[in-house]
């Protein structure tokens, strides 16, 4: 079964680029462009991974991240954050808020693909590790 990714981003061209890259790799890509309703959208669509932009209309990416992490349902959800500002301050802030991975625009397509795949398999590995003692 295909994995599902929710892309929260408001620049139409960037949305189209990421959709193309990921769907070529077999992902189902859903998108959401409004910051204010982003948390609700995550709850409804229950994606395997979220790609989150920082500068969004309505609510900042950092606020969305914090709210998601506060919710037990999404505490372990892989979240990849994208920013066009690229300052260290932003990276630190994202880490403090519990981001899974952080990426600066512009990115290379293969990096993006690798990062998304790695985040999902990491989680699977985590689950495997958690199950392992019973098996062994």
């Amino acid at each position: 079964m295909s994995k599902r990714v929710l892309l929260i981003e408001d620049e139409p061209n960037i949305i189209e680029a990421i959709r193309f890259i990921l769907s070529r790799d077999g992902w189902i890509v859903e998108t959401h462009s409004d910051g204010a309703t982003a948390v609700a959208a995550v709850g409804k669509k229950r994606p395997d991974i979220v790609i989150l932009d920082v500068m969004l209309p309505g609510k900042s990416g950092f606020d969305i991240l914090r709210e998601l992490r506060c919710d037990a349902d999404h505490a372990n959800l892989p979240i990849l954050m994208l920013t066009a500002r690229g300052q260290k301050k932003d990276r630190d802030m994202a880490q403090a808020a519990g981001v899974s991975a952080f990426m600066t625009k512009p990115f290379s397509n293969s990096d993006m693909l690798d990062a998304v795949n790695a985040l999902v398999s990491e989680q699977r590995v985590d689950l495997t590790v958690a199950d392992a003692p019973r098996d062994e």
Partner: protein
Amino acid sequence: MLSFNLLVLACLSYALFLFAVAFWAEKRAERGQLGWLRSPVIYTLSLSIYCTAWTFYGAVGYAARSGIEFATIYMGPTMVMIGWWWILRKLVRIGRTQRITSVADLISSRYGKSTTLGVLVTVLAVVGTTPYIALQLQSVALSFAVFGVANPGGLVEPDLNHTALWVAAGLVLFTILFGTRNLDANERHHGVVTAIALEAVVKFLGLVGVGIFVVWGIGDGVGDMLARIDASPVSKVNIDGTRFITLTILSGAAFLTLPRMFQVLVVENAEERHLFTAGWAFPLYLFGMSLFVIPIAVVGLDVLPATSNPDMFVLTLPLKYDQQGLATISFLGGFSSATSMVIVAAIALSTMVSNHIVMPIWLSFRKDGATVSGDVRSVVLLSRRLSIAGVLALGYFYFRLSGGSEALAAIGMISFTGIAQVLPAMLGGIFWRGATRTGAIAGILVGFAVWAYTMFLPSFGEAAGYSADLLAHGPWGVNLLRPQALFGVIGVDPVVHAVVWSLALNTGVFLLGSLVSFPRPVERLQGAQFVNVFEHTGSTRSWAQGTAEAEDLLVMAQRIIGASEAQTLFHVEAEAQGKQGYLPDATPQFLERLERELAGSVGAATAHAMLGQIAGGIVVSVEDLMAVADETAQMLEHSSQLELQSEELARTARKLREANEKLTELSIQKDAFLSQISHELRTPMTSIRAFSEILRDGGQSNEPMDPTSLTRFSGIIHDEARRLTRLLDDLLDLSVLENGQVSLNWSRTNLHDVIERALDTTAQGLEGQDLGIERNAISEHIAIETDTDRLAQVFINLIANARKYCDADVPVLRITARRLVNDHIQIDFVDNGSGIPKHKQNMIFEKFSRLTDQAKAGGAGLGLAICREIVANLGGSISYLPGQGGAAFRIDVPRVHHKGR
């Protein structure tokens, strides 16, 4: 014999000439080239409206009936003028500092900005002036009749009533045209004043001309004239000493309190020093006017038939000797006297009626505050115009009612006594701190009632129920209440009786009422301001700090004193406070000043009430009261020094605070600027990189990409590359503009073409909603020397912004252009959306200060920053104009380029 038609023609051309002179003076005033039109001479001549038709025609009649007694009418004002420093200077100073608009306003303002007193004095003034206006209409009508009787069968039937009606209508027209051009009563009526100064000369020439003709033409020079006077019954008339003194005092009082005299003396006074000249020149004028009265009366009685009306000797004497030219000049003199009085009286009364009766009523219907929409100016102007017509209509009806038969002097006395009832409250108000509102109201009411009972109503005779029986035995047979022998005082001249009783009771009640009542705080403050007007320079400090929003105040002020005037006032104040833009802090001092400005338009009481609706109630602190209660010169001086210092400190502090706020904002913005630049550059680069990699990989892989996607992706790369270029262009443009290295292509063009071009350009863009444009193409035709491309760029930006951000259901952008006196051009772009919130207004011209989210804006937020730099490079300024309803930008650029700046 002079043809009656010719006379009508002369009269009409004279009236036309007056219109032309008034119009010419207004034009000069508009261009700021008043020059000698605001000289002491004009001021002195304008005072001559004291000499109405009553003095022109009536004085001779008066002298023929009562001898030298007529001189009292001139002696009163002469005494007042010679002693001007005592009362007049104080009145003028108070009038100027408090921006007083009328007698009613003076009294109302002094007694705690009381609406009741305003209404009371207004009613008194209207009632008291009505007979006087009737008198003028009557004298003009009579003078026409003199010519008409001598020449029956003329084109115009010399019907008294018709003549009076036509004259009244003409006066209404003139007064409305030149008396209600400006709303602000303190902005002087230059046209009217110039016209009445001219009329003053005409009536002087008329009377002196007839006098010279009588002495040297009919008589044989001075010696012969003196002999004739000795032989005449005129010198045999016994002079009643009491009556003489009473009348002198009465005319002095009237000189101060007559609404029209107050208008020219105080309201139209351009400079206080003009009083110096008027102090000796006006008595001289009066002397000239009175010099030949006795000779004319004597000769008139001598040579004219006993049936002829002595009031018309000035006309009938030259006519008898067939001196047509002299008769015409004399006629025009009388016409001048009548018209100038009526015009000024109507202006003064209409100001009172609109400010003290119409405005309070209008305001009470709008409890929701003075900031709601609707034009106050048009309400005030309309009410003034209607009042002018109303006042003249009243005068006309009085003329019809009183039968038009009474001697002119008698009507004049009634009017004088009525309006003199204001005197105790006026003098008490400016010299006695203890005078109170209660005392003033009671005094005026009592005086008014006594006057009406003993003098005004009897003038209607039977029509008002004053039968011979009532006069002889009093109402219901109560002897004590006989109208002309009040409280059993018998054998006194009716005029003296009425004057003494009304003024004595008035003063007594005023004093008593003031002593037993306690003044309210505002009254105390105003009392101190009026009585100590020469010592006080500070403000009454009656408003509390910070309760009013400057923007609300601006909205209200714009509707009362006019948009550009209000904006200038606020701008100047903001600058004095060390702030930029149009919104000063609503400090108590500023509220004080604003109230005075508004008072100049709508009167003190109304201005106070309107401001009160916005700024909250009046706040008078204990310190204020103590300062008022026992201030010594020392304390005042000391505190005014402190005040200066603290004002200076407050100004510096305000400057510092604003600089600091701005610096903090700027430093945050500098940080933000870098991250913004980064964001603005990286966003398009992200798409470019992603799609170029996709295309590259597609080329290398085995299955080639379909042509549609290929075109689409390369199109995105192209668009984003262009977006990047545009951003870099803007940044470079801005940097060049900011460093002043830009080279401008100065050329002459028509502003209209530039706006047209900007509208064409923006009409093509599909971005944003449909935007209605409202403009006045004719006013845009202004030749301007500028960089056409750059100016158009600014316009395009503002229009595009309105398209994008105006959130009205039916967005409309209003573009107005006007040429200023300093040879600048002002162009306003005002939309009908919700505008820009106050806290953002300061920052919108900064870089990247986009108010909404980026997807909606679609730009980098550099537009207004570039606009500001362009306009600055063109030698002008762009600012946000608050209080216009929507977002409003004002561009101010010089019309002509000055090299080397």
